[in-house]
């Protein structure tokens, strides 16, 4: 099982959207996929068709480690497994403040908790776990990074993302994690976006993926309609970009299975 953490240094970068889209696209490339949500927002399952936030999930294991948490995973038509954060209660409420604090504290205490948990999952073939997290820095993101074989950093072409990126980059370097940076929601019409992408290429070099995902208003529309964006708008440039990204990840996963040694480069 290879683990890919999808992180970003700002909110609203499109992590959950990319996780959900890549789960489907990697399934189509004959990988067994487990999408894990390590994010107390508990929204991943909204992308796979659920109307309400999940009650069961990772959080069940934090609260009661002896429970059989494997029941919490959902499966979509294409065969992908989805493990949400869970913890939702009636009337749209989540865990109360006290519970949340104790969850965070226990995550902080056991930094390898998620890694061990994923290691216990056994899926056939070139399986992959995609871990969606909260914005970094947070205990949740740290758990995901610790669990990851490859960290996919989603970078929206915004000034704030550029400003916070160096810290994340040096953190990943210090941890010795292989990282690939993906620019998301890039609009070619915007001069600012073009300039920021040029800046990113300058600072990141080959670690910046050549697959930049274009901005497309169809993405939130597809979520609102409860559709998969890639299936709803297969001819859109954004869908093409995600296909390219998925192909790159797929070949990364295959080569990672073949060679125990780390594979070079984050470029496509």
């Amino acid at each position, binding site marked *: 099982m290879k683990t890919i953490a999808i992180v970003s240094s700002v909110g609203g970068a499109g992590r959950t959207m990319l996780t959900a889209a890549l789960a489907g696209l990697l399934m189509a490339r004959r990988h067994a996929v487990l999408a894990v949500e390590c994010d107390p927002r508990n929204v991943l399952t909204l992308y796979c068709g659920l109307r309400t936030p999940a009650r069961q999930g990772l959080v069940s294991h934090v609260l009661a480690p002896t429970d059989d948490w494997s029941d919490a995973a959902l499966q979509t038509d294409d065969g992908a497994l989805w493990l949400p954060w869970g913890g939702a209660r009636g009337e749209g409420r989540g865990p109360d403040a006290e519970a949340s604090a104790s969850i965070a504290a226990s995550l902080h205490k056991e930094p390898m908790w998620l890694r061990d948990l994923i290691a216990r999952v056994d899926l056939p073939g070139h399986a992959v776990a995609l871990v969606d997290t909260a914005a970094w820095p947070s205990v949740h993101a740290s758990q995901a990074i610790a669990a990851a074989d490859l960290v996919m950093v989603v970078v929206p072409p915004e000034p704030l993302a550029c400003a916070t990126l160096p810290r994340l980059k040096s953190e990943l370097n210090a941890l010795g994690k292989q990282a690939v940076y993906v620019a998301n929601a890039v*609009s*070619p019409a915007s001069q600012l976006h073009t300039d920021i*992408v040029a800046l990113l290429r300058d600072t990141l070099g080959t670690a910046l993926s050549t697959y930049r995902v*274009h901005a*497309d208003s*169809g993405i939130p529309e597809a979520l609102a309609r409860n559709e998969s964006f890639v299936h709803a708008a297969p*001819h859109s*440039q954004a869908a093409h970009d995600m296909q390219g990204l998925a192909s790159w990840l797929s070949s990364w996963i295959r080569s990672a299975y073949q060679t125990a040694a780390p594979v070079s480069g984050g470029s496509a």
Partner: protein
Amino acid sequence: MKSPGSVSMFARLRHTVAQQLGVDADADRGAWLLRLVFRAPRPGQRDWPALWAHRLGRHLQFELALRDDESTGTWFKRLFFRPRRRRVRLAANLRSSRHHRGARRRSMLLGRIGHWFAPVTGAVGRAGQAVTSRLPTVPWAGIGDRVNHWSSWLDRVPYLKQVILLLAFMVAVAFWTTPLAIADQFRLFILVCVVMILARRIPGRWPTMLLVSLSILMTGRYMWWRITQTLNFATPVEAFFGYLLFAAEINTWIVLFFGYIQTAWPLNRQPKPLPDAIESWPTVDVYIPTYNEPLSVVSPAVLAAKRMDWPAEKLRVFLLDDGSREEFHRFANEVGVGYLTREEHRFAKAGNINHALSLTSGEFIAIFDCDHIPTRAFLQTTMGEFLADPQCAMVQTPHHFFSPDPFERNYDTFLRIPNEGSLFYGLIQDGNDFWNATFFCGSCAVIRRAPLMEVGGIAVETVTEDAHTSLKMHRKGYRTAYLRIVQAAGLATESLSGHIGQRIRWARGMAQIFRIDNPWLKKGLTFFQRICYSNAMLHFFYGIPRLIFLCMPGAYLFFGLHVFGADAISVMAYVFPYLFVSGLANSRIQGQYRHSFWAEVYESVLAWYTVLPTTIAFINPKKGKFNVTAKGGLIEQEYLDWATSKPYVWLLALNLAGLLAGVIRMFTTQRDEPATVLMNMVWSLFNVAMLGAAVGVAKEARQVRVSHHVPLRVPATLVLTNGKTIACNTENYSTGGIGIVLPEALKLERGDPLGVALSRGDIDYYFPAVVARNSGIHLGLKFEEWSHEKETQLIQCTFGRADAWVRWEEELVPDAPLHSFVEVIEMGYQGVLRLFDACLDATEAVVMRRPRQSG
């Protein structure tokens, strides 16, 4: 006027009769007629007569093509006269039939015949497959490798090469001159054929050499026989025509042998790397000479040249405007390139460049025709050669055309059959390079200034200044190089007349060089350089021999002259082996660059037109004037270019009449030698096919849009106003606009704004545009805020990409001689049909006094 009494009387009578017959009094004629013959049905029964009469009426109406409310008179007239129908065209529309042919690119005729015999061929094919799958496969590639291994081993033995060559020559002489009985000659032919067909399958260069050697052996044998056995004529007239034919044949032999030498070992040179120290890179001046071309044609070349990858301070672009146009001066200033013009317009392009040479100072000169758009990598690909070899004076790259030339357009062979230039740039120049005899071709080349100045600049004595200049540089002992890597592309000539005009210029110029600066006469060239240059020149003298071959069967069919002093069996025993073996050898050498039999088509079209210029230039090199190749134009309606095709129509008529005469001859006067008649008729029939193809090319297919719409396929992104994106591909490009192929149709109106993004490597370039046309998945966009900067960006994302033309060799289709033969015959057949159609059109136009219909 009738009285009321008589009217009521008639009405009453009518009423009574109607009651008797059982019809309504006010029923129509048909019903009355029916009831006169058939009784009305009993109540509760179906009225069968009425039903049948109705159906019959409908059927007649349909057959006579009548409308519902036609009068009786019209009905009557139609029974005897057919309505005017639009005449059906006999010639197929090749463009639409291509879609039926499908992706396999098969010939139409072959496809159709194959369809008829599908059950048989299918069964045979399956049986063959079943048998071959059980047989052990022959490792052809392995054999090729082993041959290479042996040859490199043999190469190390000293003096072996010379000994082998000497022995080979002795064997060849014996082979050529040994007389054989007819039966043995046939056996020899079969043996050679078997060897060739086996050798064809082995990849590599040595098997090619084997094929060439066998071809030389068989040709030599044929030549010996031809000279010693067939030059006996009964009358002086026969002798005259006989020697004429013999002379034409000698020309083909020389061209054949020279061609074998020229293309013996294509060098396939690779680019040399440039040094890492950019400071050591030399300065380059880029010349873009123009005379009368519109700015829209010139500007992409200038903008692309300016953006080539080279240190900015070492690259200067100059627009050499011989038209002294204010618009061009302004454009040059706006985009920041040099503008050079001159007072006196002597020596056309050569004079223009020489004038510029005196005003600039770069160490190297890159020359592009004004419509050749270079890629960004052009200089980095070519300049390494100069730095590696200080004696290298010129590097030439291929001329590539992204639009179809008249042959390709009118016969729809674009990207399916290699065009006329493929052979030259794919093979001949590469072969020349081995002998250090690469010619300068006037564009897409870099020249070192010093040697160029040493020979007095670009040659001005002839109209093919390019080849002449490189000839002069070779005489001084400089080397030239050819890189078979497409690094620039341009527009092909638009119409057949323009295409012919260009070839006439080349032919005239080559004849001029042959006369005033013959490669054999002056010192400085190696033996093989002389051969390469003279073959290039001799090539353009094909006009007269070709015309002789096209007319010669008539000598026998009309007048009964025996121009070939041999009986039919001997001809079969010697001529066919020679033609077959050299055809097979050439197919192997030229392969994907020129399909078998297409040379005959191309030459047949140009033969008539090159005869006079080459002859005149040969007699008096000063005669004749320079003509500029016309670029850009619009063919609004399909038409047959009568003026261009006239000579071929006559030749075609001659051969068709010859066929008729042959049939008559066979059954009347020449009953004793049917084989000879038949052979001449087959020859004539072959000529008809070639000439048919030549005439068919003159039928100019309609060009839907202005010529500067150049085909171009790169990925693009559409950004709609609602924020959605579409991944699509570009289809073509024009100044200020672009054609897009969508993955699925979109609801867009004319004038709707949207954006299109093209990428160059990692960088997206965004172009705001409006919809100019929208039909199905084809979308035409017009750019807004068009500026030189935007155009530069667009060219960088399209033509300027280093990989823009890398795939051109992959697109070439390998030669299959038999298939190619069928294809050429089919083109000839279609050409004759097109001529027939055009004749009917013309007759109709004269008789009916109506403008010609466009098909």
